[in-house]
């Protein structure tokens, strides 16, 4: 199985995706609701999480039925399917942190990494640890279960989709872009690669897997980058951030370490060239799910 790093090596340096290209793509292959190539094999691996990420994916409602019809063979998922053992996959969506004291869990994520070309950490438990960062063991019947780490502490993770819960839209975008990256034309691969790049950067970031409100503070406000747009306050899933005189104030007693504030912040990451094409990219996504 080809790892994502190999897929990327073959690609040329990114060029801005031209508008013309995106329009052309929307007209070709997918318009009739048919896939441009064969389906990818994907699955959902559940570790110490709450299945909220999977529910979020299912909250694409009719969209998820279309994705499964056309683009994705759903080959592994204890909650929605019957397969009991992790098979070879193109894309593994892994949810939850890993408990170091739980042998089965550690073996499972290693196996998932071995068997998958692209590993996507979905949700904050997998990306940043989330509430599991607070765990300290001591509870029956496994009081020794005390150390929970995000995925990237144990295995290479290719793409992060943080937030607690992640949104149906972001999960859908990540899955569709992963599909294009693996099965699309060269141009489609470029678009998908560029779209996924910031989410891959998050996965490789030296600080993001330790995120909390402090990350927003340290990497945006302290760095002189904050311009008070309020994206972080809107993003925060626990209402821990309010805007006080135009700047974010984080109630650290409420923060659950999900990293959504930093990830949603336009000064967290921002790609001008890609965002300029928001219209055609959103049309493309609508088109492929028609």
């Amino acid at each position, binding site marked *: 199985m080809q790892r994502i790093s190999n897929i990327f090596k073959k690609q040329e340096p990114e060029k801005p995706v031209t508008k013309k290209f995106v329009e052309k793509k929307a007209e070709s292959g997918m318009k009739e609701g048919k896939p441009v190539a064969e389906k990818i094999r994907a699955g959902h691996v559940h570790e110490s999480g709450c299945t909220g990420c999977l529910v979020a994916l299912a909250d694409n*409602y009719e969209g998820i*039925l279309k994705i499964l019809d056309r683009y994705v063979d759903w080959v592994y998922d*204890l909650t929605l*399917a019957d397969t009991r053992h992790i098979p070879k996959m193109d894309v593994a969506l892994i949810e939850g942190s890993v*408990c170091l004291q739980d042998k089965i869990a550690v073996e499972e994520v290693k196996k998932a990494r071995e068997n998958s070309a692209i590993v996507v950490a979905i949700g904050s438990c997998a990306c940043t640890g989330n509430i599991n960062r*607070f*765990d300290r063991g001591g509870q029956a019947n496994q009081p020794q279960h005390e150390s929970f780490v995000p995925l990237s502490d144990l295995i290479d993770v290719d793409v992060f989709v943080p937030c607690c819960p992640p949104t149906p839209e972001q999960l859908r975008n990540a899955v569709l872009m992963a599909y294009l990256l693996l099965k699309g034309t060269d141009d489609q691969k470029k678009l998908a690669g560029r779209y996924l790049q910031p989410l891959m950067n998050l996965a490789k970031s030296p600080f993001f897997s330790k995120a909390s409100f402090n990350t927003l503070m340290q990497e945006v406000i302290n760095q002189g980058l904050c311009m008070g747009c309020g994206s972080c306050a809107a993003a925060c899933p626990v209402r821990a951030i309010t805007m006080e005189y135009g700047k974010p104030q984080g109630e650290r007693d409420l923060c659950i370490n999900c990293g959504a504030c930093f990830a949603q912040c336009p000064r967290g990451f921002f790609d001008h060239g890609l965002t300029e094409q928001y219209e055609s990219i959103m049309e493309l996504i609508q088109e492929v799910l028609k």
Partner: protein
Amino acid sequence: MTKVVEISPTTRHEGHSKLVLKVNEEGIIERGDWLSITSVRGLEKVAYGKNMEQVPKIVSRVCGICPVAHTLAATEAIEASICCEVPRDAHVLRVILQCANRLHSHALHNILTLPDMYLPGTDKKINPFSPEEPVRSVAKRIQRLREIGQTICEIAGGQSIHPNNPRIGGMYMNVSPRAKNKMYDLTKEAIPLAKAQMDFMIAVLRNYQKREWAEVGGKQVPIPKNLGYHNQGYMATDPVYGTTSFAENPSWDAERFMEVRPWDWYMSEVEIDLADASYPVGGTTPVGVKANPRIEACNGVPLYDGQPVEVGPRARLSRFKGFDEKGTIGQQVARQMEYMDDCYAMLSHIDELNTSGKVLADEIPRGDGTCLAWATNEAPRGTDVHFARVRDGKIHDYSMLVPTTWNFPTCSQALAGAPWQLAEVIMRGYDPCVSCATHMIVIDDDKKILAQKLIQ
């Protein structure tokens, strides 16, 4: 001669669990242990010492399917401990949130149930993701019902998964009149869909009940008429919502509840000596592997009046509506019957909501640490009880008794008498949510048999 078979992991439910089953020569289960293999995150222990405002947000993340139940049970247990009364409209919003979550959860469970069932009149099992009719229309209807449920959750609760509008003392915000109307319209749309879905599901379930056999791994396994029967009682605290120790007449009694030590209750080490590689999908655990439920799993066994009880849709229907059908199918039918009650309750509470009413208590006490309070919430899969003691705004004691925990011993009891190939069908009848039951697991509640075996 008794043999041991293990199904690990079990599928089509939330979380990680496995079944260790002792079966006789005919493959009929004599005794079943069902245990979680989800890591224990210890969220109750996490709560100790934390700010009371944060704890509902943390324990909500125990489960992404019924986060509303945990948020509300936690919030109300803490409110009961600090003796804080929430404004009427905050309560109304919470009930709406509760109903909306149940609508989505029951619909989701339909997807998990259907693959065990047959299209009436055929020998074809239902794949809910198949694009073929009539299944596709059902799948779309399920998704629309879920969409309505989740959207109403989002309006009343701020987020559909892990709601962020509830807070200690009420809610952060009331909704606008426009949002209220939107919820009303959505509920009106849900009613005929829910009715159709209920009728469809009941027809499918009754059809299964009439069948002689079910196909499992290429074999025809006989379906016993008493599939999933048990003789335990039922426990429910409200048809829709819940109660708290702060209420005038609490419908649950903490005095009648006890939690017993698990060690004595479970199978000790057993060796798997029956395996079936054709069991879908991927076979059962190979012969020779050892299983040790009492070590691998557990914690306490919750008892009410000294017995394990069943919680969930049938328990609610049984206690409040006189429903009396036993077995897995009875339980599943009860779940479908809740669709309508749920929609009507949602509608009447939306009507009742005053959008200009206040939703946050004027004064929120910080707690003096004297009151170990509790609150129950009738989650989609049963009674969720949270206990809390608060002092100076910090949590001093915290404990959760989640629905699946109550159901573990009861379900284990219900496994006996069925062919082992149908054990998962029985288990799925309980709509298990295993991550919730982080600390609770397995069980065999027949002390006598176990004691005898230990002596042997």
